[in-house]
């Protein structure tokens, strides 16, 4: 660490708390790749949010006159076998991907964090039992676990929203987060300030929420970002297998499902662009997650 005029000359207390913009600038300076990831993610989110205004066509409008049109000025990314505009479907697909990814990762990580903290805090038999169950879940690839949940729940559309699909994506995330959060919570539990809080006679709930939870935010946020990427990938895979988002909703995985393979020869653009969109989204969230880890947890950089 180098000491310069700003760090010596200014006592920390007199400096105003950095605003979000300053924080971002500092993050970007140390983690340029992470900042690039964050910007890509934001651009995708905005594109998804504004899809109705910026998409040139209706993503579900079938037009047999424009079937399998190659990329052109009218259809920048071409059209599919129903004459639907691929650019518009990708823009609307960003909505599906980001909403599904965000919601499922949030549900999965939060449940996992609660289970991890409970397991670490209570210890003993409870910890042992939770960890055995976590072990069993962790011995299965996440897509297998997700498919088991799909088989278990079947289909259930609530207000046009497939809640069972969200569960299928979030449940495999739970044991992964629970394992990591538990080990962080275990080390925090041994800290002197937790002992002091206990000696001071604070309630269990207060200790968990006021003393342990804030210190678990960093691992939680890192896991959350990493699992948004996993959730997007999982949603795309399930949709590709025909067990995720259903037609005609625009979803990236779905655009590659079913008979897309019949058009390898005539319309490669049908295959290429949705895959690029999935890869870019997953890649950006992974970059962001990795950099967030280096930024929030400097110890991991040494490894």
């Amino acid at each position, binding site marked *: 660490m180098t000491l310069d005029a700003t760090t010596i000359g200014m006592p920390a207390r007199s400096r105003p708390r950095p605003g979000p913009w300053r924080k971002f600038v500092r993050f970007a300076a140390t983690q340029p790749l992470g900042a690039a990831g964050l910007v890509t993610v934001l651009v995708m989110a905005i594109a998804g949010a504004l899809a109705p205004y910026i998409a040139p066509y209706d993503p579900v409008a079938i037009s047999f006159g424009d079937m399998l049109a190659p990329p052109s000025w009218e259809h920048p990314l071409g059209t599919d076998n129903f004459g639907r505009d691929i650019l518009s479907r990708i823009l609307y697909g960003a909505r599906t991907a980001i909403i599904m990814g965000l919601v499922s990762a949030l549900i999965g990580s939060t449940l996992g964090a609660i289970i991890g903290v409970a397991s670490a805090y209570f210890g003993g038999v409870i910890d042992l039992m939770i960890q055995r169950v976590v072990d069993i879940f962790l011995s299965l690839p996440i897509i297998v676990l997700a498919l088991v949940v799909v088989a278990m729940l079947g289909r259930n559309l609530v207000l046009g929203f497939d809640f069972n699909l969200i569960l299928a994506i979030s449940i495999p995330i739970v044991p992964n987060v629970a394992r990591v959060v538990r080990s962080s919570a275990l080390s925090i539990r041994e800290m002197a300030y937790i002992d002091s809080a206990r000696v001071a006679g604070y309630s269990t709930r207060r200790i968990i929420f006021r003393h342990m939870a804030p210190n678990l935010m960093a691992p939680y946020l890192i896991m959350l970002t990493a699992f948004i990427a996993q959730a997007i990938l999982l949603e795309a895979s399930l949709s590709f297998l025909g067990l995720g988002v259903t037609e005609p909703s625009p979803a990236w995985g779905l655009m*590659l499902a079913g008979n897309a*393979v019949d058009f390898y*020869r005539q319309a490669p653009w049908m295959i290429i662009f949705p895959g690029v969109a999935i*890869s870019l989204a997953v890649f950006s969230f992974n970059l962001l997650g990795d950099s967030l880890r280096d930024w929030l947890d400097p110890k991991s950089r040494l490894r």
Partner: protein
Amino acid sequence: MLTYLAKRLLMTVPTLLGAAVLIFFMLRVVPGDVVEVKLRGDGASITQAVIDAERSRLGLDKPLPEQFASWIVGLGKLDPGLSMWTGKPVVDEMKIRLPLSIQVAVMGALIATLLAVPMGTLSALYRDSPVDYLLRIFSLVGLAVPAFWFGMVIILLLLWLFNWLPPVVYTPFFVDPVANLSQLIWPALVVGIRYAAVVARMVRSSVIEVMKEDYIRTARAKGLAEKVIIVRHAMKNAMLPAITVIGLEFAFLMGGLVVTEQVFNLNGIGQLFVQAVAHRDFVLVQNIVMFIAAVFVFTNLAVDLLYAAFDPRIRYR
């Protein structure tokens, strides 16, 4: 060593039993099953009596603990029941598809190891050089690209470059190795490259660790050639963590097969699993899941035993 082996083998029993309990009851928490999908699938109006009759034929009307017990006993005798969809024995359904999936998995693991070990080592030795950056980009991209799309891109490339598509009919390796490999090398490449992305990262960090050790300095002080130091001293020691990851990821390769088999239209375990899920064929689903769990448990065991072979410091009691 033998007692250790026996002990470890016995320890797999509670793990697998726990997995069986979890999977069995998880699948049956929510009402609804294969009978409804099969009979009511096309919106046909079927009387409750017909459904009940089919249920009792499949043994679904018995109490759950009884169904569970008969499944476990069956697993022990390698007769874990009949597929609820086709009515054929699960063992037969899996047996015809297993050779293909195992071959792709093993080939994928081989490709991954052959790629990841040299790549990880090189990038550790030339740390923070262009080689290192290239590897890091490779592993980030390898993790981001969905397996199914990567498979499709390979097919597209084969079409563009050679105007050729891999054969669609499966030929066993010992019947015609060329036809067999020209079909299965592509899916193996797809699962292998993703797997290599994970393993290469591990190899890299473990070689970096080892290069800091005292015995590397000693070897250098002795005046050993750098090549000997790297191959005989560094890589041999760095392989332990790498073996762990290769072993652990082998079971997760099964997950990659689920989508990859779909892309290449291979009639393997992965495709069987997807169909079983779509049909809500619980018997088939639970048995395939148990198979994957068993692969995981036994590769773990094999990794632990391999440790002893690679590292004489580890002794088992």
